[in-house]
């Protein structure tokens, strides 16, 4: 198995954190993994993306020519990356701020209104964690418990309530896609 995922969105949406937490979780699971951020003279409100490669053998290239999974948190990211997605790949999009839908017919996509859902669970800044719940529900790369443990590790103990609130956000996303079938482009 060798899976590549690109996370993309505005800087400040926690896009790099999504990738980093997935990479950490994958490492704890025992996968080989690389985390490659697109770095540059970037800032809040600018664009951010990162590529995670993971698998049970050594990662040849940390760069994704055709990622298997794509998570887009804003519309520009959808336009930039949807054509890179591999045939049969899965696309997760932040339906809270993206009105457009992918046009490709050979992929599956899930629209997750993660900002509204994060607000519902009382943590508006956890939209990215909601998305991670949705992502792991459909991809099943690592078990949710491992992921949440990793998230807790890397977030540190800034606030005592943080792990609990993240868990709620994650569960919301995870349950949201439990019984949802993906759409394809029209």
């Amino acid at each position, binding site marked *: 198995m060798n899976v590549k995922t690109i996370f993309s969105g505005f800087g400040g949406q926690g896009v790099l954190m999504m990738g*980093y937490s997935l*990479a950490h979780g994958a*490492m704890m699971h025992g996968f*080989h*993994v*690389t*985390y*490659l*951020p697109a*770095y*540059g*003279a970037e800032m809040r409100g600018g664009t951010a993306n990162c590529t995670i490669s993971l698998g049970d053998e050594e*990662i*040849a*290239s*940390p*760069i*994704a*020519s*055709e990622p298997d999974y794509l998570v887009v948190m804003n519309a520009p990211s959808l336009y930039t990356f949807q054509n890179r997605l591999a045939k049969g790949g899965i696309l997760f999009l932040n339906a809270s701020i993206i009105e457009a839908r992918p046009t490709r017919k050979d992929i599956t996509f899930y629209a997750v209104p993660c900002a509204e859902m994060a607000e519902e669970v009382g943590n508006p800044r956890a939209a990215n964690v909601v998305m991670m719940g949705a992502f792991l529900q459909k991809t099943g790369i690592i078990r949710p418990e491992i992921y949440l443990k990793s998230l807790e590790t890397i977030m540190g103990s800034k606030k005592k309530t943080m792990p609990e609130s993240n868990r709620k956000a994650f569960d919301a996303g995870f349950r949201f896609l439990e019984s949802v079938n993906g759409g394809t482009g029209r």
Partner: protein
Amino acid sequence: MQGNCVIGEAAIRAGCRFYAGYPITPQNELTEYMAEHLRKTDGGVFIQSESEIAAINMIAGASAAGARSMTSSSSPGISLKQEGISSMAACELPGVIVNMMRGGPGLGNIRPSQGDYFQATRGGGHGDYRTIVLAPATGQELADLTMDAFDLADKYRTPVMILADGMMGQMMEPVVFRKPKPRQYPECYVLKGAGNGKSKFIRGLILDAIEMEEHNWKLARKYNLISQKETRCEIHEAKDAEMVIVAYGTAARVAKGAIRRLRSMGLKVGLFRPISLWPFPTRELRELSEHIKHFIVFEMSTGQMLDDVRLALQGFANIDFFGRPGGVVPTPAELSNVVSRRYPQKDAYVDRFLRFKVVEGPFGP
């Protein structure tokens, strides 16, 4: 762990106790890491210097006083350090210099590139000298080669360069730190007060031409010894290969991805990855050319290592080249397309649609 931090941690574990540096993207995390962690060590000193030139001269000083020392920068900053590196080579002072290459020439940009190969492997500064250059390609190698760099620097009393690029610096990978070897070096040169013994003197200025010539030959003999003993390379999937990609560092990672794709199309492609860029693994590459006749050099530059490959193969094999300079990191798909188009054809007739999977464009294959 992030690549830059891996180097910092490996250096500290290897016993580096002096670091001086000046900020430049994409290696700032290394300076930051040393600032935070060096002070927690026994006697560690971190200095954010007023310039790159000051930093290299500070590590020369610390090295003369017997400390394992390191500095780091990225391309434009490394250019500034050349005078100091030349001086360290002349004075035979050990030290580790990390270069996280970025796009150039000039200030260029901050994206990963491999344009400093010539500068690193040809000495860089003025005068008749060489620096050992190690090129890691994985997070694990960043750790291992950093530790090796300190050992090599001590063993040969010469500056050693770690040549990586912005991508290696920014990328995170799991790393296991090995136990460092105990430090072995001839203490005879270290300036720590003469006591009752003879006074010591380290200098790079030798005005007498005959004396300078002797010093040059002494250095040259040392460099010859290094060329014989310290070459390193990785040969990957080359046993049955018809064509071999020659690439180092990040480019080699891209090449490995491309090879996976090419092999799935049925094309027998392997990889030759120099780990020591100077000394270049000439002997190993020439041995490989005994049964492989097609090589393609792939670099994130317009063709620098290409010269060393030509020198090594001396016309005994075909050498092709593909490069993307300026901070562009090609995808494995792009490289595999290039390689498949230049793959040696054996039969008079080949159905290209059968043999090669053609990547479909918007207007068909």
